[in-house]
């Protein structure tokens, strides 16, 4: 199996912070807005270098979305940052009208997504955000897997013309993708080739899926691992090609079943190539307080559970 080196654990939100600064340096149209979460979103460096282009909105997310849309209409490239729940569920209608329907060039920087937000508990842990954003016509949905990829995804989002939902998180996770690999929106990345089962993962669960593939290899099961950092538009060709090759698919995500990557992949395969599938996700539950790793284990999103799911998928063939 292809080896990936963890160059040191880092949080994906810090990858966003670096990416935002680089995007701001490359293009003066980039502006950043936050609703009293500058530090949490790692916007400090951008704010220090471009004080005029950093816009503090206070704890008023609805207005932040509208103000960003207005800025975008005048030609700016606004990134709005808050916790995932507060830039999706809390402001769904604002995003729908001002950003998606209004087709404004707004980038939604969504930090602390999923249960790995940890100790704050369920009010702050959204497991529904991908479903909400996927449902909006034309919205691009990105969920990069580590620091480097989040940095690159941020730069790609700034260059892309149109609404983007960029999802990342709080915990430090292995940083293993190449620092200089440009992020290509809509392109799946095959991290490991395999012939027995496909593991399609997104976000924090990508590294766990690599660990699961290693464990499976020891048992003689060759798992293909796909990093699906773009959830919408989904790389359907990559999904179909891999499913055709392995004949069994597991989809892994730190998100609930309803409306997530699992259903997106299932939709493609049901239409094009019905394939035995197993889903690893937060099912139909709210989160709770705990450390990120304890929560990932408790909700069955770690390598151990992914490997079990892969064996179930193989058995369904």
């Amino acid at each position, binding site marked *: 199996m292809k080896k990936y080196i963890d160059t040191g654990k880092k949080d994906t939100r810090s990858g966003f912070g670096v990416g935002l600064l680089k995007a701001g340096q490359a293009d003066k149209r980039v502006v950043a807005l936050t609703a009293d979460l500058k530090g949490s979103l790692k916007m400090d460096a951008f704010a220090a270098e471009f004080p005029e282009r950093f816009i503090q909105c206070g704890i008023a997310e609805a207005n932040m979305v509208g103000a960003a849309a207005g800025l975008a209409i005048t030609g700016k490239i606004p990134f709005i940052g808050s916790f995932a729940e507060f830039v999706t569920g809390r402001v769904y209608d604002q995003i729908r009208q*001002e950003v998606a329907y209004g087709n404004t060039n707004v980038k939604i920087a969504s930090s602390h997504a999923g249960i790995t937000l940890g100790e704050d508990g369920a009010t702050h842990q959204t497991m529904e955000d991908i479903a909400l954003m996927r449902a909006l016509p034309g919205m691009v949905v990105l969920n990069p897997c580590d620091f480097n990829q989040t940095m690159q995804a941020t730069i790609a989002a700034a260059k892309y013309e149109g609404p983007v939902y960029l999802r990342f998180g709080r915990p430090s996770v292995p940083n293993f993708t190449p620092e200089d690999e440009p992020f290509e929106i809509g392109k799946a990345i095959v991290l490991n080739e395999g012939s027995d089962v496909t593991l399609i993962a997104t976000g924090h669960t990508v590294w766990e899926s690599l660990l699961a593939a290693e464990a499976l290899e020891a048992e003689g099961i060759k798992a293909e691992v796909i990093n699906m950092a773009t959830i919408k538009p989904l790389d359907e060709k990559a999904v179909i090609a891999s499913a055709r090759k392995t004949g069994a698919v597991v989809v892994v995500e730190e998100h609930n079943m309803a409306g997530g990557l699992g259903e997106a992949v299932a939709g493609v395969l049901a239409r094009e190539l019905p394939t035995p599938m197993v889903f690893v996700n937060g099912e139909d539950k709210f989160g709770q307080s705990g450390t990120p790793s304890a929560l990932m284990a408790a909700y069955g999103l770690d390598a151990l559970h992914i490997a079990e799911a892969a064996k179930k998928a193989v058995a369904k063939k």
Partner: protein
Amino acid sequence: MAKTNEELKQIATQVRRDILRMVCMAKSGHPGGSMSSTDVLTTLYFNEMNQNPVTWRRDGKGQDMFILSAGHMTPVYYSVLARAGYFPVSELATFRQMGTRLQGHPSIRKGLPGIFQASGSLGQGLSAAAGLALGKKLDKDDNFVYCLCGDGESEEGQIWEAGMFAVFHKLDNLIAMTDWNGKQIDGPVDQVAGEGDLAAKWEAWGWRTIVADGHDFEAIRKAFELAKAGKGSGIPTMILFKSEMGHGVDFMAGTHKWHGSVPKPEQLEDALKQLGETPLGDF
């Protein structure tokens, strides 16, 4: 060239005729608030705004911009835009029909010139307008951003979020207006939500607050003049235009019942007779 009050009055009369004919042809739409804000929007587009239908572009560079936060007032908005030359007045006949550029609520997706942003879900336009105003500040573009809200709409909390934001960011190039007609779908505003004294509230929020008669062209002009004089003060301006829902037609005036209802054919005939014809002609 600036219009005289008489000329504005004539245009406004024609706009009210357009509004009623549009909603009757579409058998739907919102005439009440459209008629209460007709005189203000007519003055805005024909006398106050630095705008040009020929060179119009969505990013508003080098021109004033306008956001209709109370998006249901499309009949007056489309009529004023058409009469100002943004698109042919004949197109008003397509209002709310399949395939039209004149969607029930403003859309930027149909290529209708003059529309800067989608609206309809209430309470959001003032935020967008604040974003436009901030964008102009960053670009050192000296033009104004105007925004029209409803008083019923101002029950939405986001209006007050935007109010705080505009003061904090010193958006003195933002001129907001409220069509203070005192009515909303379910009844008089003070019986539906207890909104209270909007003037006192906006003043408390830190805005330069002007109250003016929304049906007196001289008063409307003066209000805009005063609002524009706020440039350089670092403070945004709110003009509260006291108005009457359904203004201009006796059986429609002053009642919430015409917020989203359409006159019957014989009522339309009566209403058009009351308004009288103008040399501008119907679409």
